[in-house]
């Protein structure tokens, strides 16, 4: 059940650091479960390679950037998910 083919652990780590910084600057926090977040980061990286943009790893592409604008991370549903589940889906 692996993903993000071709990505080294160093690259995954680098992307994690970038997302961490962006989240903190925006007033959000990444989940303290680092392994889980790294798993999501690998999913985002896989989608960036696959589609050319960081489609939410848990959402289905509608067939192109235009159709997917609402589900590119951070997606339009993040705040509603945080309110309802304390995490995004």
């Amino acid at each position, binding site marked *: 059940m692996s993903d993000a083919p071709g990505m080294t652990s160093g690259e995954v780590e680098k992307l994690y650091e970038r997302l961490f910084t962006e989240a903190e600057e925006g007033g959000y926090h990444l989940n303290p479960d680092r392994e889980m977040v790294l798993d999501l980061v690998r*999913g985002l990286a896989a989608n960036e390679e696959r589609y050319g943009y960081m489609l939410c790893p848990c*959402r*289905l592409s509608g067939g192109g950037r235009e159709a997917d604008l609402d589900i590119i991370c951070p997606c339009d*549903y993040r705040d509603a998910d945080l309110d309802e*589940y304390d995490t995004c889906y």
Partner: protein
Amino acid sequence: MAEFEKVEGSKKDHELRLYAISTCGWCRKTRSFLEDNDVAYEYVYVDLLNGQDQADIVEEVSKLNPDRTFPTMVIDGDEVLIGFKEDAIKEKIL
């Protein structure tokens, strides 16, 4: 017609069908939880399907979960669990 992968397990009291995305960490957590608890289930990675197979499955998911979020799991054909909800799985399945 999209094929679901069947995963064997000793706990077979419920019919479980999991709609998942191959890149989704929550979907992986759901699968791991079911497998760690030896629960039989079947799953499909919707993003890896093509053409009509994917369209048919997406239509199924849309009826179960109009937000089309994953994982979406169906228990015994009628009860729908959305997201990775460990406690709910424990309560309903284990």
